[in-house]
């Protein structure tokens, strides 16, 4: 019953949009495709849906050649980032459209539609026109339409990104309930996102994609703890993981020839040489014994403050608890939690993670 993609290549221009994608999707599971804008997330979803045909490679679903089946016979559902509904139909007509298209029994349609409307909390809005709904409600209609279809493959392309913060939080919770719910568990869910936090919250398998290439697949925990390379570490953290050139020499860890640490015990066994040293913004902290950094930008995010800092050529971002304001060029003392340091080889591959056994 699984969906298999093999060696999918899509190269409409000089650049690869999808570069040798091989993936397996199992029913009843949630997959999050995490990648930056233009990394190929939407292209991948559209390829699975059948809106784009890859230049080479294969897609198999339930043992059949999926590429030979046109979009309209594939029984997939897709929710877009933009709120896409049929403007000439009201809420109810929108939701029953795919079912009518499938020529389902009218009584069954009635039941499925009211079920779906109930689930997304749009009861009482059945006769409304799409234009009379708020953005969040419009996206609920799109959601209800794809739920009512009971499609075997459900593709969600950043469905929450155009909503305001509060709604996003609420709907994301509902998503998890709706999709991981018992009756829906025979479907494959693929959720594309640019937001690492969202990907972690959805807590499914994460597929990290960049420039059309799969960089890493694995559970949220695994990807967070052991990013396969420096790129993944940047993509899966917000703010991106701080990466600076450094080397281990003479029992010292030296960043950019500027900052020196005594090698902490957990890194004692590391061979000397050049590395890319990674540390999360949350693992930098204010410390009077720390190193002198200058503030470039200070931004407040919720109950935290992001400080963009530099010390000569070393640039990094630190997450400071609490809302504080800093002047540009103000000097602050910052220290590193050395037990949380990652080491990447110069080629970018992960060399050492604090979570490795």
């Amino acid at each position, binding site marked *: 019953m699984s969906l298999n993609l093999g060696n999918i290549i899509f190269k409409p221009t000089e650049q690869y949009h999808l570069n040798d994608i091989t993936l397996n999707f199992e029913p009843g599971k949630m997959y999050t495709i995490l990648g930056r804008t233009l990394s190929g997330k939407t292209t991948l979803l559209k390829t699975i849906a059948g809106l784009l045909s890859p230049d080479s490679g294969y897609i198999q679903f339930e043992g059949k050649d999926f590429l030979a089946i046109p979009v309209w016979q594939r029984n997939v559902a897709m929710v877009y980032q933009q709120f896409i509904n049929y403007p000439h139909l009201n809420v109810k007509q929108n939701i029953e459209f795919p079912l009518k*298209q499938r020529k389902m029994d009218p009584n069954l349609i009635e039941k499925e539609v009211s079920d779906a409307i109930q689930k997304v909390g749009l009861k009482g809005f059945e006769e409304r026109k799409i234009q009379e709904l708020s953005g969040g409600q419009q996206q609920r209609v799109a959601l209800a339409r794809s739920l009512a279809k009971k499609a075997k493959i459900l593709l969600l392309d950043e469905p929450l990104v155009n909503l305001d913060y509060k709604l996003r939080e609420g709907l994301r919770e509902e998503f998890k309930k709706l999709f991981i719910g018992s009756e829906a568990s025979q479907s494959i869910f693929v959720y594309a996102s640019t937001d690492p936090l969202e990907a972690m919250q959805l807590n499914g398998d994460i597929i990290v994609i960049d420039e059309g290439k799969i960089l890493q697949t694995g559970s949220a925990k695994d990807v967070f703890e052991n990013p396969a390379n420096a790129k993944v570490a940047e993509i899966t953290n917000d703010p991106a993981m701080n990466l600076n050139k450094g080397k281990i020499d003479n029992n010292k860890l030296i960043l950019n020839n500027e900052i020196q640490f005594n090698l902490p015990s957990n890194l004692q066994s590391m061979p000397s040489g050049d590395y890319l040293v990674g540390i999360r913004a949350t693992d930098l902290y204010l410390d009077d014994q720390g190193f002198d950094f200058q503030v470039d930008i200070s931004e407040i995010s919720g109950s935290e403050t992001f400080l963009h800092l530099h010390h000569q050529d070393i640039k990094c971002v630190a997450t400071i608890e609490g809302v504080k304001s800093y002047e540009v060029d103000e000097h602050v003392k910052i220290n590193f939690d050395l037990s949380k340091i990652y080491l990447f080889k110069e080629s970018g591959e992960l060399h050492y993670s604090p979570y490795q056994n």
Partner: protein
Amino acid sequence: MPKLYTFIKYFCVILWSCFVIAPFLWAISTSFKDFNSVTGGATYIPWLQFEPTLDGWSVLFKPGSQGGINIIGPYFNSIFVTFTASFISIALGTLSAYALSRYTFKAGFVQNNDITFFFISQRIMPPVVLAIPFFLFLSTLGLLDSLAGLILVYIVLLMPIAVWIMVDFFNRVPKEIDETALIDGCNPFQAFFKVVLPNSIPGMIVAGLFCIIFGWIDFFFAFILTFTNVQLLPVKIVALNSSITPWWSLSAAALVSVAPLIVVAFVVERFLSKGNLSGALK
């Protein structure tokens, strides 16, 4: 301050209305005058300042043998030709525009934009350039001086307008709507007819309005491509002109000829006020 603003606003609206309505009133009053009333200085109020007569109007409906021009035949010819050509232009134009907006065409260096420009370029040339080609073309087909020939020519003239407006319209409709229709089980034809077309009606109304206006007011091609068998209204009206310009009949003819446009404008206005034209697709 708001009072002054309201005053200025209404003053401007009334002034503008005068400019728009005055010619109509002028034409209406003139159409009921005779030679003496027209040439005898400016008069406005019937019965008081001049004696109204129906002479100007009756000329339009009298047959040629009685000194009239009988516009009823040309009138219906004009309506038939304009509306048929507009309808076909909208139908073909919408289909072409959809294809141009959604699919990529490539023939050497010719691409979608070039094809769109090719359509529009038909309207850039002065009409005179097209006169001889059209004449030869229709005469080869044996369609000179026929309704079918005129409709054919008007489609060539009007379809670019439809394509132009509809390409712009479709470019603003997110293509994700078509894609969603495909995903929801429509084949490409069903997606177009069940989803895209019902949402394109506002654009088609606007395009239709332009086609009807441009078709209706054309004199040049109607004049060149017809002789005696088939005549259109604008040509017939010009036939009124003799040694003495019959202002009264011309005014009546002018009023008769704008009537269909006014009807069309009212119909479209109803759509506008219902909000059907705007915001159907944001």
